[in-house]
């Protein structure tokens, strides 16, 4: 039995598990007992209003922040208890697309994508070039390898960041607001590339986004963070019809009256 009484039974492998995670900044409580589970191969989307702490949850998953209380299990390890070396081993199985892509601005796009390969493998330069070109092609950036991040548009930077996140076939990929700052066409492009790469590489994905309801199309599960807690963790179609008042208010605020008719159709 899971949040909001929904049944969630599965024998699949748990990739990420939060148990009662609490986090405060000074006297401000941000996360108050977060429980969350991400199963292998699924795409979890965490939504919520700005400033609720969605990125804080993501930073806990990445081991960039430690909780004040509770457990954060990632790929079978409680990453709040392991040392730096063990955390590095866990992170080798990650890929992360940061909100602003976080490309190293002193390196070309090619070198940015090649960076994890050069640092973590013994591949020859020929093998690296082949792999990097394949990933750049996957995100439709095959002609931009020589460019520097400052020469790229916002959408291109995100795509380069995605290529870098995927270069070593990660098991889990984290997306922090993947479409923030992009127009509708560029956002759709990122969503298309997400589907394409996920289908090809088969990774588990965690997406933090405020781009509801569009982001629901990518999700296997949607979690709503509000009032310092995960209110529900449900498949998107159930999420949209959920009677939890906080969820209802979020759904109405983000989907508006246009969506109401669609909802009634679904209900009918």
């Amino acid at each position, binding site marked *: 039995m899971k949040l909001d009484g929904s049944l969630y039974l599965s024998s699949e492998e748990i990739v990420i598990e939060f148990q009662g995670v609490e986090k405060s900044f000074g006297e401000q409580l941000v996360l108050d007992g977060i429980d969350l589970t991400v199963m292998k191969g699924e795409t979890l989307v965490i939504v919520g209003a700005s400033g609720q702490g969605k990125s804080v949850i993501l930073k806990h998953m*990445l081991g*960039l922040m430690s909780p004040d209380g509770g457990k954060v299990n990632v790929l079978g390890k409680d990453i709040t208890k392991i040392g730096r070396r063990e955390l*590095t081993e866990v*992170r080798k199985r990650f890929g992360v697309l*940061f909100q602003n892509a*976080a490309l*190293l601005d002193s390196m070309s796009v090619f070198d940015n994508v090649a*960076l994890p390969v050069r*640092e*973590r493998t013994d591949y020859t330069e020929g093998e690296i070039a082949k792999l990097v070109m394949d990933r750049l092609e996957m995100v439709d950036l095959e002609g931009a390898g020589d460019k520097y991040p400052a020469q790229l548009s916002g959408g291109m930077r995100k795509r380069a960041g995605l290529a870098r996140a995927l270069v070593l076939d990660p098991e889990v990929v984290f997306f922090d607001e993947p479409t923030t700052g992009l127009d509708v066409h560029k956002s759709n492009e990122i969503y298309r590339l997400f589907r394409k790469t996920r289908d090809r590489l088969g990774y588990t994905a965690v997406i933090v986004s405020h781009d509801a309801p569009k982001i629901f199309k990518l999700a296997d599960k949607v979690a709503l963070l509000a009032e310092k807690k995960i209110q529900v963790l449900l498949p998107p179609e159930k999420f949209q019809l959920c009677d939890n008042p906080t969820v209802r208010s979020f759904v109405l605020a983000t989907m508006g009256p246009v969506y109401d008719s669609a909802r009634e159709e679904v209900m009918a």
Partner: protein
Amino acid sequence: MRIFKVIAEDFLFYMAMAGRMTIFFFRAIAAAATPPYKISEIIRQLDFIGARSMFVILFTGLFTGMVLGLQGYHLLKNYGSVAALGAGVGLSLVRELGPVLTCLMVIGRAGSAMCAEIGIMRNSEQIDALECMAIDPVRFLIAPKFIATLISVPLLICIFGVIGIFGGYIVGVQIFDVSWGGYFQSLYDSVGWDDLRMGLWKSLVFSLLIVWINTGKGYFLHMERDGGFGAEGVSRATTGAVVLSSVSILVMDYLINALMI
């Protein structure tokens, strides 16, 4: 009660910062001392910290030596011992002014840039990205700067000393009436291995202070008490790093003198 709370919070904040900076220092030293070395990045940093500081070091070294020659000549003339000018210029440069002024110049030119570069990388999540790619940012970003500073600053100090002695020679021998033989003989007689050793120790300790404080302030920009984010945060951290490293060098200069004299 409120004042006690503020003092306690300040104390805890500075203790935590001292702890972070100490761990950061030892991590950087360990990363700099053990392979694999980022040779191309070390060369790039040598160029930035060392080669590109050459002009300013030559310029300040020359004029420092010339001022020493000018002041020293007029002082020594009163005692009829202008031949000791070489000793005065040489000792001042090798023991004190060479290490201190070179390091202050390097802080202004390269130290501030190191702090700003690392700080901007912290602000734009580039350091987080390295960590998430399982790449140690200390080994990747900081260690090459430690190695390059430890190589280039002592060399810049040597160059400062040599060009300063030449500056003293121009003023004392070429402009005034000191004989070149007297100038260099007094220099040779007075400046010994103990003086060079002191200069060397200072150059090593000061190099470490420069690179540690400037990279550390940038690396922990996000943990600055008054908020390290945005352009203003980087600017504040850079100013703080320059002031702190400059003051630390002057304090450390006194301590080394007190220990070695």
